[in-house]
């Protein structure tokens, strides 16, 4: 198999290298996912989250020790900016004693003079339910999409697209695990959007492969060449669309502020790896599985054949 690829055209060789790279990245992602896990946000764990600003910039460490004095439970303080902070508490923290104490302390202290922007409480039961629902949605989306692909395409092309899709999701999850970026409900929504977009690219390449395979005069060409041609003729489109989408996602990342940060990061990565996988996996895997023009020939049974052969 190795020989088959190395002997081929430049395009085939590149695709093969890309696939190897993808396989390595998937292994790496699975490794970090099993080792570090995901940093689940409030939506899934439940608990209290308070977001507040201070009148002047405060050092995170100073604020941390100040709140620790006025808080008798465990909490997690993160800085969103110089004067913008988030404080997270476990759902078991009692409502009255713990949370009110520190809040009045930071709002009444003249040096800090905090102003609470938003506060949220999510019961741990709700968090579990949201997580279950999210997983259910992912599986439902994958199955619905697989059924659609199986009906629309030949099974080899369909399988290629699905493998590419799973690859994209694993890589995005791997990145979130590696950098320990908060995984919340909007990130989950972006994963579902990635399912849609990742397939978009794969389908467009697949569509072209199918079209070229159906052309009679292409019968002499090897399937590797046909796939290379299909990729070449769709490459401009793939790059332009991914480019404009990436530009818009990047502008969300830059300007839309903290609430959409995770969402934008997930989509950005998803689109980059999705474009990559549509070429290196979605189009390459069917070739390994033996896709050829024969799969698209009109099937003629013996009886019709004899009728056709009649003078």
């Amino acid at each position, binding site marked *: 198999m190795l020989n088959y690829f190395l002997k081929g055209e430049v395009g085939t060789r590149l695709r093969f290298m890309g696939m190897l790279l993808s396989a390595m990245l998937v292994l790496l992602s699975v490794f970090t996912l099993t080792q570090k896990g995901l940093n689940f946000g409030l939506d899934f764990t439940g608990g209290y989250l308070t*977001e507040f600003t201070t009148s002047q910039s405060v050092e995170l460490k100073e604020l941390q020790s100040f709140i620790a004095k006025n808080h008798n439970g465990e909490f997690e303080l993160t800085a969103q900016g110089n004067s913008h902070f988030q404080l997270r508490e476990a759902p078991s923290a009692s409502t009255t004693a713990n949370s009110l104490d520190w809040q009045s302390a930071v709002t009444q202290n003249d040096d800090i003079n905090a102003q*609470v*922007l*938003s*506060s*949220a*409480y*999510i*019961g741990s*039961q*709700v968090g579990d339910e949201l997580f279950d*629902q999210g997983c*259910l*949605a992912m599986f*439902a*989306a994958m199955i*619905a*999409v697989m059924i*659609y*692909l199986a009906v*629309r395409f030949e099974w080899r092309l369909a399988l290629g697209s699905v493998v590419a899709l799973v690859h994209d999701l694993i890589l995005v999850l791997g990145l979130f695990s590696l950098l320990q970026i908060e995984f919340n*409900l*909007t990130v*989950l*929504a972006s994963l*579902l*959007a990635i*399912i*849609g*977009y990742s*397939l*978009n690219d794969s*389908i*467009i390449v697949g*569509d*072209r492969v199918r079209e070229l395979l159906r052309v009679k005069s292409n019968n002499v060409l090897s399937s590797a060449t046909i796939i290379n041609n299909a990729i070449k*003729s*769709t490459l*401009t*489109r793939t790059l*332009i*669309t991914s*480019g*404009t*989408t*990436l*530009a*818009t*996602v990047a*502008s*969300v990342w*830059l*300007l*839309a*502020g903290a*609430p*959409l940060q995770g*969402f*934008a990061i997930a*989509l950005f990565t998803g689109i980059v790896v999705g474009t990559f996988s549509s070429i290196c996996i979605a189009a390459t895997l069917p070739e390994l599985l033996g896709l050829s023009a024969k799969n698209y020939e009109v099937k003629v049974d013996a009886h019709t054949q004899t009728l056709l052969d009649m003078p």
Partner: protein
Amino acid sequence: MLSFKKDKKPSTAKFKLSYIAMLIVLVLLAISALPNLYPNKSWLHISAAPHSEMQSLPSTKTLVTFLNNQGLEVKQGLDKQSTINVLLNEPTKSAQAQAAIKAQYPNTQVKIVEHATSPTWLQDFGLSPIKLGLDLNGGVLFVLDVDLDKAVDEQLVSAYLQAKSIIIKQKAHGVKAQQTQHGFEINALPNATDKLTPVIEELQSRFANLAVVTSNNGSVKTAKFSYSEQGRSSFDKEVMGQTLTTLRSRIEELGITEAVTQRQGKHRIRIELPGVQDPTEAKRIIGATASLGFYQLKEIGGQTFNMQSGGTIKLDPVPIFTGDHINNATIGRDDWGKPLVQLSLDGQGGNAMSAFSKANIGKPMATVYSEYSQNAKGEVVKKSEVINVANIAQHLSSRFSITNMKSQQAAADLALLLRAGSLTAPVTIVHEQTIGPSLGSENISNGLAALMLGMGITLAFMALWYRRLGLIANVALILNLTSLVGLMSLLPGVVLTLPGIAGLVLTIGMAVDTNVIIFERIKEERRQGRAPYQAIQEGYKQAANTIFDANITTMITALILYGIGYGPVKGFAITLALGLLTSVFTGVYVSKILSQTLYLKMGKKAGVKVHA
């Protein structure tokens, strides 16, 4: 809705008809999008509380000076006979002003009402801006858990107690009720089996949702009572409906007109209170418990009660019986077709009613609805209101009707209140979120900035890369955004959230895909030596299938997301799905007509060569 028709010959008649249809759709959507240029403003409506005298309303001038002194600068104050309407310089502070006025003038009712600022002709069409989600508007969100299991348990216990009293009343010796793990059972000894059936029938007439399984255990006949799956689900539905209605009427008291109260999933209720900053008052009102009592009227002495319809009435302070003795209340019609409410009471209530009605035929009886809630100081406060006064026509027992209702609606409302007084499922808050108004407006401006930048980059790129065709794509893109905003304003129930804005930005980036696929195809056709017009025709035709395939998978995921998501995530799913529809519409149909017109008409006139 979308179909890809192949028209081989561009017949002018057909061409013109589709042209006009498209133009109409675009214009309609653009007009629907217009009100978004005029954002709503929150006004304060101040009126006298229902049971107080008109004099309790301060004059407009005093009110304005009061607010200005509180640091809440008034922009406009209008005197509208019975109400005063006030617009603040910073409308986001309306909630603060509402609290301040309530504290200063306790006998007033203050409501925050959204006023449209768009021209009247737009309002006459019933057009309004897109509704904003809590993350953009600021406000309080509650998700409540309704303890349905507990409600069922209580209902079963009540049925069990009534079974016991029915047995005593029917003098069914040898029949015995007994509680079990999943409900209760009635056992009849061999010599009393014939007495079992009337007991079961009586019980079933009171509790329609209960299922009975009878069996012979040796010589003892046993009837097991429990909730069947069907009975349980209809019971759950009833309890949820009651809880929702009770909550809605309580939230109305808060004076928030834009509040959203809806069922979320099987046993949750989602309450969104836009504009509210302090959740404590809302929490107090939501957590209140209701009760119901039937009272005798007193002409001399007695306690004064407020009537719901206005005015006061004097009643005996001791109730004849209370709401926990009501089993069920349903609406019906009397022999003359007038609406009425049928009540069924338990044994104790029935006895009290029987004794009272026998001695008071022809006299009126009042129904009082009371709510217990905690006030700001944490004290329990009772608030009572007379909801109905009816004459006793005859000697009544455990089943009777309240007749002479004004309308079907009035009967339905009363039945609901009666049931609400009899059966309340415990409610707990499982999710609470407060979003400050400054955060909300910051989210809007951030989202819009991202939209502008994303749109700018896309427009610039398309214009540079595709030149003339790029201009068509850009026109299509702008029309796409307009149509999407118009569609979102037009459809009821569509709410714009921060992730929704992200979806909007994303749609812009992806929408060019349709045009890129087509343009690349046209270029290819040109390379194969087709004439410009034909190349365009072929390009659109060939690309249609690919575009359909590519968009349908995203549509599937968007629909699934819409199905399971709540709040902000649902907002994202809606924009994504609607964005796909509008981008196929503008990208395929509108830009096809645009490019045909541009190349066909202009090409003919000037004889220019086309470089696609």
